[in-house]
């Protein structure tokens, strides 16, 4: 692996550019360089690992049992990547992917806009593999914008990358397979967790049990039981809570919830929220890839073929960004995407492609076992996806409330893009990452139509902020100059 520290050291053109250095990106890059493709990995973080294996090569948490054996498995992916001939830029932000147009308006390659070390650059690639992973699903409850409330994943990141442990009384609330893992890691690190408030609706079990035979054969069963057993032995677990709220003056000091119709209040210093993860689709959406609403995962999932190729030629999507499938599946998806990309580049033939992909596919189908059970069991409760109280903030950036969104739908607004012109909803710095799913589902419910019909924000590059100075310093073509100079 060859580390590049500034934009000027990037090549003009690569065979394959991989966006993201989580498990999918690392495996994709390792495979594609093995197959002879000149490969560049661009990643926003300080080191390889993505979020699930965050800081796996640099974490100051030396006691291995705190983060657990599954975490340390990420080191193998990082080691294989390090041994590869891939180029790697950390702290690099990709803000656009699109066709590289020549003077005649034709496109033979893809163009990637990237910022690194305070400067921007446009480079080209024949293939792009987006491995941008997942983000934690929005959790719009009263008070979720208060200081003292963060995602459970955020606390996990502080632990993994800095060895920071929450101080004071911690309440963890929500649902999802990761919730117990995150809680157990924090507890092992010494956090004082006064309660774990479970919001999984009891009615989910009926749906989930249909997938039970598949789940029993999966590694998730023993892992899950171990985590549940640990949590039940050490923690106060409140199951089936509704009406979750955070409150406080200037900062969160109290969590309120209802249990069997009775209200309970808990004084605490930190509330950690988590109700599963959803694909991070900002870059794939802005690239023009088609996305479909998935009723099981309650999220937008980019449309990909069996080789993880999206609807945009040359752009593949691997890992959880192509639909949530977990950390074990991510590197396998990355490998398959890279094998197919190398085939399109002419580096290997179709026979070689199939020979290499077959065992990976077999492993992938084993890794996917049990996912449908987890998706069904931990489908977040409707009340925590579609807020019922009018004053709950939905768009945190522009401070738009659930009430405003419903009023606007009553005026006849049909979708999130029209909603923008009324409320600026989704137009703040996060570009809908923290409100998009909520807004789609709210409009769908209010109109009585499917989320697929309502659609999502039409995102445009840059998907991350770029300074004017960076843009102005980019080289410009003659045609571009002529278009604006008078």
């Amino acid at each position: 692996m060859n580390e590049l520290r500034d934009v000027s050291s990037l090549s003009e053109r690569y065979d394959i550019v991989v966006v993201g250095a989580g498990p999918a990106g690392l495996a994709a890059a390792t495979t594609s360089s093995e197959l002879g493709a000149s490969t560049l990995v661009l990643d926003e973080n300080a080191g390889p690992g993505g979020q699930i294996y965050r800081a796996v090569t640099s974490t100051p948490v030396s006691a291995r049992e705190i983060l657990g054996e599954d975490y340390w498995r990420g080191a193998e992916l990082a080691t294989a990547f390090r041994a590869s001939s891939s180029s790697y830029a950390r702290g690099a932000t990709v803000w656009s992917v699109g066709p590289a147009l020549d003077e005649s308006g034709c496109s033979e390659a893809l163009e990637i806009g990237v910022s690194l070390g305070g400067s921007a650059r446009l480079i080209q690639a024949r293939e792009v593999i987006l491995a941008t992973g997942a983000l934690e699903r929005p959790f719009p409850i009263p008070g979720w914008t208060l200081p003292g409330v963060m995602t459970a994943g955020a606390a996990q990141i502080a632990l993994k990358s800095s060895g920071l442990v929450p101080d004071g009384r911690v309440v963890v609330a929500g649902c999802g397979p990761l919730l117990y893992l995150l809680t157990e890691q924090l507890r092992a690190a010494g956090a004082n967790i006064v309660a774990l408030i479970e919001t999984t609706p009891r009615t989910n079990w009926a749906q989930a049990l249909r997938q039970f035979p598949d789940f029993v054969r999966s590694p998730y069963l023993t892992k899950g039981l171990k985590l549940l057993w640990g949590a039940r032995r050490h923690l106060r677990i409140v199951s089936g809570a509704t009406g979750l709220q955070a409150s406080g003056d200037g900062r969160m000091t109290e969590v309120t919830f209802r249990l069997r119709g009775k209200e309970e209040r808990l004084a605490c210093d930190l509330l950690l929220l988590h109700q599963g993860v959803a694909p991070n689709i900002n870059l794939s959406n802005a690239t023009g890839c088609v996305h479909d609403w998935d009723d099981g995962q309650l999220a937008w999932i980019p449309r990909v073929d069996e080789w993880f190729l999206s609807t945009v030629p040359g752009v593949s999507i691997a890992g959880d960004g192509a639909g949530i499938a977990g950390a074990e599946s991510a590197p396998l998806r990355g490998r398959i995407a890279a094998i197919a990309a190398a085939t399109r580049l002419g580096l290997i033939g179709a026979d070689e492609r199939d020979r290499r992909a077959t065992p990976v596919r077999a492993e992938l189908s084993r890794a996917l076992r049990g996912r449908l059970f987890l998706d069904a069991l931990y489908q977040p409760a409707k009340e925590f996806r579609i807020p019922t109280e009018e004053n709950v903030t939905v768009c945190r950036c522009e401070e738009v409330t659930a009430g405003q969104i419903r009023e606007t739908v009553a005026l006849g607004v049909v979708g999130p893009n029209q909603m923008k012109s009324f409320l600026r909803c989704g137009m703040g710095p996060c570009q809908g990452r923290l409100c998009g799913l909520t807004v789609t589902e709210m409009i769908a419910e209010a109109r009585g139509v499917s989320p697929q019909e309502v659609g999502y924000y039409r995102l445009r590059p840059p998907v991350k902020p770029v300074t004017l100075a960076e843009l102005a310093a980019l080289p410009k073509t003659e045609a571009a100059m002529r278009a604006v100079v008078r």
Partner: protein
Amino acid sequence: MFRRLHDVEGKRVTFTVDGRSATARAGDTVSAALLANGVEVCRTTPVSGAPRAPYCMMGVCFECLVTIDGNGNRQGCLIAIEEGMLVETQKGARAVAVDGRAGAGA
């Protein structure tokens, strides 16, 4: 709000937050450094002036925005803390001063 695990070692970095001197561990992000120093509120919003703190720590929520070495609206959770860095919390919308230079806060 956060404390360091007792056995965490590493090089110390000195920086300032709103003019006060503070220390962090080399390898911390700016947001982690602020949390470790008990800075709970990193900004107030441009819309209503409500206090906000880092929410996702992974670069997607943009709640951790701070001014770093005079440049506003930087994502604290993605930028590594460095020796001598000047970190300022942000107050509401940015004011534009009469001499044409943008001010750091209202």
